[in-house]
């Protein structure tokens, strides 16, 4: 548990019914903290449903910049009668709960250790707004007004935010301002404002943006020069293609003819989506597909094909809760093993593990470079927490000198000078062969086949010829270690325990390390950013007696992968697992490590 709440260190949770327009009010509230210069993160816990089910939005305000899930709620805005009891229960002792007092609360719903603040939101909005829709929507804006009074938010920032949102629609700005005032004034008149914890302006968000990982991933695909995107809609990856489409419509239309220099294919299923991506990459375009776990299952046959025939492809797996359909709107990191060895036969894939939207952007670009350099599918594993939640990250930057790494491609001029071309020859002794694109030159023609082939590309069932090719693929895997992003390591010789983690665990791990450090327990940290594991991973393992492997799945998949792919003793890797569908919080890490340390003391 964190020590809060205190100024600039608290968590607000808003319980709504989905489909009632709460999303924009909640986003507004989150942005106000950001624009007041205070680090903030917004997390959405929503149902796999369009209208009528419970949904929550959680805003963590952290002056210290801890942006993982806090695991506590200090201010609950309970707008959903159906979940009221649960929401009340979740509130931390000493916390505050706002409810709509238009209707009386059930007598049984009470807690003596929290403060209950009733605001007649519905009644006030019914009195001030004419249409049914406005009355529903403005209730949400009114509680933002109340929070503004309770937490002493900058009203000027709120006004500015509303103006930016509704720009030319003055009547909407007016309506929203009225609703803000309703909540604000009511709170000022009836409660002690501000609360003991409040917002205090800072200057910690300059040079930063609030962005979700799917949007950042789409930007990465755009900047990498992807021209073909194929996909089948699946939560939580859908907004990758939605964002790519809107960016492409803006930046990829010919200024004169208005023609598109991209193709987006909404496939009939994920099998087709990856087939399209392989076809397009084989033909020299940069192509990608965003998907989630069930899509990876369906794509597996083609992923093995891409591996064996050495065709680049970029797959973005925005992981969700499995197994099977699982919980489509909850987060997990449970596709690690499925992706690492997706498909039958001896198959292995390059994986990338971004930790936040900022890395999604840069790694998406890198994924295309890697896929083409290594001539193989590359799977970037994000998750719902990164992909669909609002993260504060450094402003994205771009080097205009960047040129895509297309890898070893022979064009017509090169082929013209050659006596002959063979697709799978290891000419440079790095296990990466040369490829050609259709239509370039008759000499470049070859036959791509998932069946046994020899180093010349011809069909084979010969034992030696077959083995030559699969052995070279294994050597190519070793070459890949030189190109994949290295892990981020924080190491001090003082510490004997290490933490290995990946992806969206990062913020929780960093916060946990800070808390452990405060308690006198120092840890080293390695964040894996790619598979295959580079030498740094082995060195880190070798340098520690105990290593906690923190990840968000039940079966300790990263740990399994480390045991399979490094030299390491089972007992030294302690699993620290969080897999209930909510993003991991620091307590999950500190509790597990403390428990393990206690065991050590007892023994």
């Amino acid at each position, binding site marked *: 548990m964190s020590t809060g709440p205190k100024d600039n260190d608290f968590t607000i949770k808003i319980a709504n019914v989905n489909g009632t327009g709460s999303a924009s009010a909640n986003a507004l509230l989150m942005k106000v903290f950001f624009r007041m210069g205070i680090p903030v993160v917004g997390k959405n816990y929503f149902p796999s449903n369009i209208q009528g089910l419970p949904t929550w939005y959680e805003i963590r305000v952290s002056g210290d910049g801890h942006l993982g899930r806090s695991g506590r709620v200090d201010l609950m805005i309970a707008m959903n009668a159906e979940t009221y009891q649960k929401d009340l229960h979740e509130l931390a002792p000493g916390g505050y709960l706002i409810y709509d007092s238009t209707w009386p609360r059930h007598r049984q719903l009470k807690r003596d250790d929290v403060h209950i603040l009733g605001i007649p939101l519905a009644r006030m909005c019914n009195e001030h707004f004419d249409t049914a829709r406005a009355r529903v929507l403005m209730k949400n804006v009114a509680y933002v007004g109340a929070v503004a009074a309770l937490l002493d938010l900058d009203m000027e920032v709120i006004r500015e935010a509303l103006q930016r949102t509704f720009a030319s629609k003055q009547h909407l700005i007016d309506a929203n301002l009225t609703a803000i005032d309703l909540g604000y004034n009511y709170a000022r008149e009836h409660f002690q404002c501000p609360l003991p914890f409040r917002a205090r302006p800072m200057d910690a968000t300059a040079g930063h943006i609030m962005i979700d990982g799917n949007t950042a991933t789409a930007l990465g695909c755009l900047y990498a020069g992807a*021209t073909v995107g194929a996909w089948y809609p699946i939560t939580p990856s859908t907004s990758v293609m939605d964002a790519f489409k809107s960016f492409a419509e803006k930046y990829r239309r010919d200024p004169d*003819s208005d023609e598109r*220099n991209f193709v987006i294919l909404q496939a*009939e299923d994920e099998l087709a989506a990856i087939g399209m991506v392989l076809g397009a990459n084989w*033909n020299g375009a940069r192509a990608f597909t965003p998907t989630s776990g069930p899509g990876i299952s369906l794509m597996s046959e083609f992923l093995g094909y891409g591996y064996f025939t050495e065709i680049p492809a970029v797959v973005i797996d925005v992981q969700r809760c499995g197994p099977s359909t699982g919980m489509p709107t909850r987060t997990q990191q449970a596709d690690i093993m499925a992706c690492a060895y997706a498909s039958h036969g001896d198959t292995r894939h390059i994986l990338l593990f971004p930790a936040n939207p900022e890395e999604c952007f840069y790694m998406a670009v890198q994924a295309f470079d890697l896929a083409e350099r290594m001539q193989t599918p590359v799977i970037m594993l994000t998750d719902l927490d990164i992909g669909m939640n609002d993260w504060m990250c450094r402003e994205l930057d771009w080097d205009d000198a960047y040129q895509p790494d297309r890898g070893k491609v022979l064009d017509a001029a090169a082929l013209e000078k050659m006596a002959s071309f063979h697709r799978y020859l290891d000419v440079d002794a790095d296990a990466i062969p040369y490829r050609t694109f259709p239509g370039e030159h008759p000499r470049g023609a*070859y036959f791509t*086949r998932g069946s046994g082939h020899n180093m010349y590309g011809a069909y084979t069932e010969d034992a030696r010829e077959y083995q030559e090719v699969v052995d070279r693929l294994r050597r190519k895997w070793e070459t890949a270690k030189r190109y994949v992003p290295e892990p981020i390591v924080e190491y001090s010789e003082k510490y004997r325990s290490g933490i290995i983690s990946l992806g969206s665990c990062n913020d929780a791990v960093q916060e946990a390390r800070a808390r452990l450090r405060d308690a006198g327990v120092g840890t080293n940290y390695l964040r894996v950013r790619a598979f295959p594991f580079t030498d740094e991973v082995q060195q880190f393992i070798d340098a520690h007696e105990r290593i906690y492997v923190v990840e968000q799945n039940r079966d300790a998949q990263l740990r399994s992968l480390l045991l399979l792919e490094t030299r390491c003793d089972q007992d030294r890797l302690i699993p620290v697992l969080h897999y209930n569908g909510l993003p991991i919080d620091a307590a999950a890490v500190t509790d597990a490590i403390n428990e393990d340390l206690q065991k050590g003391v007892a023994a």
Partner: protein
Amino acid sequence: MSYIAKPKVTHPGLPRNELGLTVRDYEGGMSTLCAGCGHDSVTSAIVQAAFELNLPPHKMAKLSGIGCSSKTPAYFLSQSHGFNSVHGRMPSVATGANAANRGLVYVGVSGDGDSLSIGLGQFAHAIRRNVNMLYIIENNGVYGLTKGQFSASADVGSKAKKGEENLQPPIDPCQMAIALGCGFVARSFSGDKQQLVPLLEAGIRHNGFALIDVISPCVTFNDHEGSTKSYHFTREHYHPAIHADYIPPAAEIRAKYDEGCAMPVTLHDGSQIVLRKVDPDYDPTDRAAAIAHLEQLSAAREIVTGLLYIDESKPEMHELNKTTETALNKLPFERLCPGRDALRSLQQRFR
């Protein structure tokens, strides 16, 4: 698959096409299919058609799925890129390839198992997208490589080699394609090169998805008494409805056709197909009538062949998408990457 190199000996007297190439330049590796396989005749018809169309071999991409039919792209046009994909998934690969470069000729070769069972969904959706490609189904009613199971195109009552009778109704790819809105639907027979070659040529030149369902008997597992996909049965029940002659652009139409029976259709690139009606009351531009005709004759166990349906007016995938004329894989990076300043300004909305 072929792994036997064919000796490259060209007779000096062999005719050359406009590119100076002979038919031999359009051949591929040695076939490893059974002697007498219908598929080898289709292969040779494709070689003939590509030669006659003066196609630069490297400007064609040949794609296939899995099965006997899908092996055949290795046996023609060895100077073309080939893509032998996974079972039933060639349409998606062809769609992606075509998306990347609209400037090549795409020829897909599939079978009845590959297209009508495992790949039925992809087959249908490639038609729906109107991917600009020629799609050949080499249809023999059986799974050859796994030794003779019925496929989804087997007719009710057709007998397997060991006497088992097929009870489930067949899927007719032509009827299905017409119903799905395919703009070029033909059926032919591997044993009728006269009919098949011009159909292949027209199919390649058609703007959009062109389907040719070729009855191509399996000599090993489905050429016996009681089979409805045997050479004998096909010849007995062969019913040419429309004969198509392909006329390249700017060539003079020399053949004489009877008024009322001959029907020229101009293709996208200015070439023409002249359709000669064998059934006088058959109109290959009337979708409903085409389906009705097929239904009627197939009930009578007749195999209707020829160009069954044509509509040159449908926009193909890129026209629908308004894609730039330049192949996407040829666009310079500078035109694809919006650059640093754009990234700066677009991030305003994330503040």
